């Protein structure tokens, strides 16, 4: 799982934003860490457990999973079986890429759409978490469609590049 910078994608603005979301999303890990240490220290040394640390950590994990999704795709982090793919000719690989991005778009597009329906329902009903703090669910749930939408944008960008590549090599 060693880190490899995006191999084939250009280092333009989108790539920079992607890299930034990578460490920003990862940064919530530090906040989780502080919240949990506060909880453990409070409970064992000061007999004052917090009500919010558990819920905050869960909310942050949702942020990490969805806001980090575009970065993961940009840095080719979504694991796959590539030992057959690697044997394809470059042209066939580009065609397979087109198919892969379409599959990815369908799944993440659907998650975004349905994630938005869920978040909107929570907004309208003012739904709240069932845990101690009873925080509203919308701000956390809306991260699902935001992350899925950003991932779709990355996938569309990759898709367009591959199609252009195929079209230009077809002419040549």
């Amino acid at each position: 799982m060693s880190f490899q910078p995006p191999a084939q994608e250009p280092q333009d603005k989108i790539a920079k934003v992607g890299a930034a979301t990578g460490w920003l999303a990862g940064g919530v890990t530090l906040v989780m860490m502080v919240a949990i240490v506060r909880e453990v220290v409070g409970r064992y040394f000061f007999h004052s457990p917090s009500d919010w640390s558990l819920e905050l950590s869960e909310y942050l994990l949702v942020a990490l999973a969805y806001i980090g999704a575009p970065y993961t795709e940009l840095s080719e982090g979504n694991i796959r079986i590539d030992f057959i793919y690697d044997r394809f000719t470059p042209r066939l690989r580009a065609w397979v890429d087109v198919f892969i991005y379409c599959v990815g778009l369908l799944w993440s597009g659907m998650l975004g759409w349905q994630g938005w329906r869920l978040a909107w329902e929570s907004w309208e009903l003012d739904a709240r978490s069932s845990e101690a703090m009873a925080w509203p669910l919308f701000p956390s749930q809306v991260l699902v469609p935001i992350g899925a939408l950003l991932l779709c944008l990355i996938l569309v960008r990759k898709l367009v590049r591959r199609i252009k590549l195929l079209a230009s090599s077809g002419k040549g």
Partner: protein
Amino acid sequence: MEWYWILLLAGLALLFLMMLGVPIAFSLGFVALGMGLILVGPRILFLFGTLAYGKVNSFALVAVPLFIFMAEIIIVSGAAKDAFAMLNKWIGGLPAGLAIASQMGCTLFAAVCGASTATTAVVGGMCVPEMLRRGYDKKLATGSIAAGGALGVLIPPSILLIIYGIIAETSIGQLFIAGIIPGLLLVAWRVAYFLVLAVIKPSVAPRVRGFTWRERFTSLWMVLPLAGLALFMFGALYTGIATPSEVAGVGALAALVICLCYRKLTWQVLKEALQKTTRTTCFILWILVAASAFGYVFSYLQVPQNLVNWVTGLGFNRYVVIIGINLMLFVLGCVMDPAAIIMVTVPIFAPMVEALGFDLVWFGIMFVVNMELAEITPPLGLNLYVMKAVAPPEVSLNDIIKGSVPFMILDIVGLAMVIVWPGLVLWLPSLMM
């Protein structure tokens, strides 16, 4: 449609997509989407949205990024290098001493790191050049550490066991404690193998000079950071004073402190560790969401339930089923990432195993021991490639694969022992407070 057709067609579709190179999360999600729309109808879609949020919004899963972050920080701190230097001073002078010290290094590093590949990369990067310099056979040096690195997923903490615990709805704390004895057993087998090898074929593992007692005692402090962190985590889990996620949070902070003490903590190091944490956590959680959607559609269509009835109705000895499952896992392990294998198969296997009267904690450990084997089995044994990447250039992938074969056999023996004597797994958790 009959359940077995659904199982067969979904399995084939999944296999086709994955072999083509579609990321595992997208493959699972796409098949779940197609199956759900065709066999259940559009009303299933809203459920996928609910799963996308509900599956990730879990305190148990919070341990995943925290343990990944902890390992990343420990890797850059250099504490592992010190620990290996100390082990080498104490054990290095024995027959096959360097190999034993490296194996102990793998065990110790596995106790602060939840992933196989990271353990292989760190220990392999340090120990392989040293072993080659001392005249060790390159197959032995690389094969033993590729196998040793796989301990990362068995010795707690373990990302695989967290994922298994969540999917099989079993205590992650118990799974962590249950992994210890089988992990140490595998190490003991390997050490025994090194000793036998040192006697019958000393040229592959030449004895190196011993160290003085003074050198040994003055090196003791070098193991403190890793051993202290490992013991703290073990103690907190064993006594039950903290949940695995809490242990991960405190462990991550301890790792930062260790890295700071070694003066290796820079802004760049932190940024890269956070990016790696994002990448690994995201790919795991996206597979988890897709696998849950897949599992949910399967359950809705009663596929696992029918499969359980069918298998239990066959009247086979239950161990025949376990051996069948192991063979299937071994084949999957040759081509697929262990985390993905757990997420795809546990929703189907866990009810079956439970219906046959097996303990789910035991099954989880057996599963992960099998995955240890997967990590060193070509063509997709990840540790083989990680070893290739960190070993000196004169070592070929072929050397590493050949070197891993004896350890694959030892792992199979370990797996058989776990199956025959479930007490090896279940004794320690039964004593937990």
